[in-house]
């Protein structure tokens, strides 16, 4: 089994096991719920080892788009193409991290992680080795016996991240993963994600409405318009993630530019009646 050796070989070097040769191509997706057009002609590439942030005013269909990418929902038109193969050891190539964590309240931390491995053909020992490994990598080892209700929001999301890492995804699909957290915890988890990316160079599609998160994490930022969601602009930020802390002014400028793009849309979206 190549899986075991891949895991144990992780030493935090560049181009680690995450480096698959798998890109995602979102090809001409349009969708409507009943009479309501939510997405229109979305065409987008998520290249390997990059974080693509999708931002847009509320109700623009960003979360819907993410559900299409992971195959949880079917678009009316267009499709999501996987270019290249997921790495051989990947148990679940497209793996979500949810805003509300989606932990089972009746399972402890380690059993929540183990849950997603139980349907795969792994020996009990291999499974617990993976669980221990990801809990160690997310600094959760001492909480493995705790129930979700005993954990803070930030810790719950760390458990969800550990659970996602356990299945060695080729691409992480993150749906506002920090939005349910208070601003200080959000800052801490943002640092964790950056550190994780430096170590593992994962591919991710990161949906958020928080511009600061987008400019800190995104190699590429896709701005969606308000409903029906269209791609308004794609912004590339070429400062390496690790160096962004030192370029606050530049980031601030990028963020301001994004805000200018979005301001009017956000205002209009705010004044719409929601019925979706």
């Amino acid at each position, binding site marked *: 089994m190549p899986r075991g050796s891949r895991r144990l070989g992780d030493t935090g070097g560049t181009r680690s096991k995450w480096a698959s040769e798998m890109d995602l191509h979102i090809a001409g997706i349009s969708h409507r719920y009943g009479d309501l057009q939510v997405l229109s002609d979305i065409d987008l590439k998520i290249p390997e080892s990059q974080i693509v942030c999708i931002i847009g005013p509320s109700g623009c269909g960003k979360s819907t788009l993410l559900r299409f990418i*992971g195959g*949880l929902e079917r678009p009316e038109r267009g499709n999501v193409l996987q270019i290249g193969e997921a790495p051989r050891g990947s*148990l*679940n190539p*497209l*793996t*979500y991290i*949810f805003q*509300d964590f*989606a932990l*089972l*309240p*009746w*399972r402890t931390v380690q059993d929540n992680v183990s*849950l*997603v491995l*139980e*349907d795969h053909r792994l020996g009990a020992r291999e499974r617990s080795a993976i669980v221990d490994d990801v809990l160690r990598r997310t600094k959760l080892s001492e909480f493995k016996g705790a*129930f979700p*209700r*005993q954990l803070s929001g930030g810790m719950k999301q760390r458990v969800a991240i550990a*659970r996602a890492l356990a*299945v060695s995804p080729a691409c992480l699909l993150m749906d506002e993963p920090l939005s349910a957290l208070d601003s200080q915890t959000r800052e801490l988890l943002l640092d964790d994600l950056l550190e994780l990316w430096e170590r593992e160079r994962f591919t991710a599609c990161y949906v958020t409405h928080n511009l600061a998160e987008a400019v800190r994490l995104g190699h590429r930022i896709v701005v969606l318009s308000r409903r029906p969601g269209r791609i308004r602009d794609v912004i590339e930020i070429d400062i390496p993630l690790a160096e962004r802390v030192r370029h606050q002014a530049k980031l601030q400028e990028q963020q301001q530019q994004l805000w200018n793009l979005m301001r009017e849309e956000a205002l209009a979206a705010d004044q719409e009646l929601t019925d979706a």
Partner: protein
Amino acid sequence: MPEAGSPGGKPVAFRGGGFAPRPVGFVGPIVFVAVILLWEAGSRTGYISAIVLPAPSQAAIAFWELVTSGLLFKHLSASLYRLIIGWTLGMALGLAVGFAAGLFSLARAGLVPLVSALFPIPKIALLPLFIIWFGIGEESKVATILFGTFFPTVISTYGGVDNVDRGLVRMGQSFGMSWWSIVRKIILPGAMPAILSGARISASIAIILLVAAEMIGAEHGVGAYVLMAGNLMATDQLIAGVAILSCLGLTVGWLIGRAEKILLRWRG
């Protein structure tokens, strides 16, 4: 008196608190004992006539006769047998049908109206039919309890399945869990609180129906004992029998409480 630093102020009136009943363990038993003592005193002084209501001590004597004659064991074991078999089968069938209605559109569309139509029928009214279908042996007694517990179990089970957080189900799907795994590891535990509170209700219904079931030519059984006492106007025995049923209910409630403590430990 105005202090230094708070010139001429008055404290803001407290208006919070309340609306949070705390458990006060010793009150329940005290109320029990007080009611029984009052009742006994009423009977002794002749305020409560023995024809209207026998004294608790009379009922205790009747109960003691049951114990010494060895009949208590016979009555209890006959009743427990019917209760356990009827309730277990009713729960099992109810869980199966409840899950089917909770998971499959067709089963829901077909079964839920049927359950709603049959649930309110008093099972006592169907006793003659049960006798025709199942005879006057144990089968018809068990069937009465089975039917009585089946319907509330179906309703609480499919309500519980409905209330499982769909976000968790989606999470399971997004990790490629199989349908069966999702049912077993996400839906079943998620529906467990509702299933257990349904079990509490169906267990009480089973005890209520025990008397009805034992109307069908039962020689032994707590229900049969109560009925017999009623027919003979032996009110002391009647009270003793009713007290046994009440204790049975308390015991079952306590057992389900234990099960909740263990199975729902995660709720804290």
